């Protein structure tokens, strides 16, 4: 069964450092998302991406965040200068269109020290 894969599974970084989280969505999907979850609690929407541009973003997704799909397969989330409060589990999801349900990766745990 096709799946969304995310790397790394866990990253520890110092405050102020740049972090890139990578995702490989399901190959024929067209819509891509990043969500984050802090301490196993609420799942918060960050950004949606379609046709190589951002469709929608939340207030959390400020200038420190960016997304891109550089090579037609990887979908990346970059945090330019990490803060302590960026520590969370980050989930990538993709959507095939017309079905509605999101397919999630297993997540990348980011710890900012």
């Amino acid at each position, binding site marked *: 069964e096709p799946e969304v894969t995310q790397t790394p599974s866990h990253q520890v970084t110092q405050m102020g450092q740049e972090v890139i989280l990578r995702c490989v969505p399901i190959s024929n999907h067209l819509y891509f998302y990043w969500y984050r979850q802090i301490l196993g609690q609420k799942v918060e929407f960050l950004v949606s991406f379609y046709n190589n541009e951002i*469709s929608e973003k939340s207030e959390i997704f400020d200038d420190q965040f960016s997304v891109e799909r550089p090579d037609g397969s990887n979908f990346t989330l970059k945090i330019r200068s990490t803060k302590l409060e960026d520590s969370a589990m980050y989930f990538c999801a993709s959507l095939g269109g017309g079905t*509605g349900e999101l397919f999630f990766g297993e997540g990348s745990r980011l710890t900012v020290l």
Partner: protein
Amino acid sequence: AQSVAQPEDQVNVAEGNPLTVKCTYSVSGNPYLFWYVQYPNRGLQFLLKYITGDNLVKGSYGFEAEFNKSQTSFHLKKPSALVSDSALYFCAVSPAIGGGFKTIFGAGTRLFVKA
């Protein structure tokens, strides 16, 4: 603006008993409603969805959910709980099917099924 409420942080039920996890929503237009499950240290997995049609929808692992438009609710149910159903359950709403439209999740309800 769309929103989802899950009024219970935790639901405890004995194995073999029926379970209900509650969800209410607020969305303009026709709602597209979903339930997802999350096991420890895993991503979210789709359980079931309501788009249109029959108010009772069936999903994975014997779960079902009932859409009630007048009460704006979409409660998750299972006739007989299993210990293995213990997990974190998220109700979600989307304003439309398809990409570019964000799916918003409730705060989650932790289900404990006791043997």
